[in-house]
């Protein structure tokens, strides 16, 4: 059980690190917000599943499920609000010049 939880948490950490690298490497607000949404969709999910395995069957697992549900509801809302605000402020999405 403990081993499974460690595997999940490490996998979650991997995606969190990839998201952080993405925020640094990607060129503009729009593509960076894609990287940020990677954090919530897989990074946090795998971390929380790992913590759930660590806890075993208890009422904390219910709380973790509630956190996951709320995270999956608010993640698209925040990403959409950020991108829409950037678009309305007049930012143009970065495009590759050679294409």
């Amino acid at each position, binding site marked *: 059980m403990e081993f499974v939880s460690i595997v999940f948490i490490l996998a979650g950490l991997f*995606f969190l690190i*990839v*998201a952080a*690298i*993405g925020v640094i*490497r*990607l060129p*503009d607000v*729009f*593509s960076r*917000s*894609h*990287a940020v*949404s*990677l954090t919530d*969709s*897989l990074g946090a999910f795998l971390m929380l599943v790992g913590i759930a395995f660590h806890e075993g069957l208890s*009422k904390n697992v*219910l*709380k973790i499920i*509630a956190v996951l549900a709320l995270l*999956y509801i608010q*993640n*698209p*809302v925040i*990403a*959409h609000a950020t*991108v*829409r605000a950037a*678009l309305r402020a007049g930012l143009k*999405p*970065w*495009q*590759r010049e050679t*294409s």
Partner: protein
Amino acid sequence: MRPISSQFLVLKTTALFILWVMLSGRFDLFHLGLGVSLSFLVAWINSGHSPFVPRFQIWGKILLYFPWLFTRIVQSSLHLTKLILHPRLPIQPRLIRYESTLQEPPAVVLLGNSITLTPGTITAEVNGQLLLVHAMDEVSGQDVTSRRLESKIADIFGEKAPSP
């Protein structure tokens, strides 16, 4: 002020109360009573604002839709991870104008949320049935441009599937 749907009020109160019990973890009369009254108060304050009426017959289909969406999320996450870690950063960001055929506002909301929840695509603007989607590259936008996502949602709400 809109007429209050009593069925919806009861449903909302119950949902909030379950959340209360889960988070407080105390079962004595004082805390349960406080929970019931506060849940009812919050549900009552909010009851005038929502035009959304729950339709139980579509909830089963929505529950079946989420696992499918989750497999798509995992696949596009892996694709995006590959893009980010690639030494040459082979991204081709683009804005896609997308005309949806969905009639009901909740269906459009579910479509926009699903697009944003999938890494690699974000709904940038919604205006009625016109969606502006920012996609990381061609592969990320495929589910949107092929109308696969939309036909799934049309199926949930019992609407006519879009022609590809």
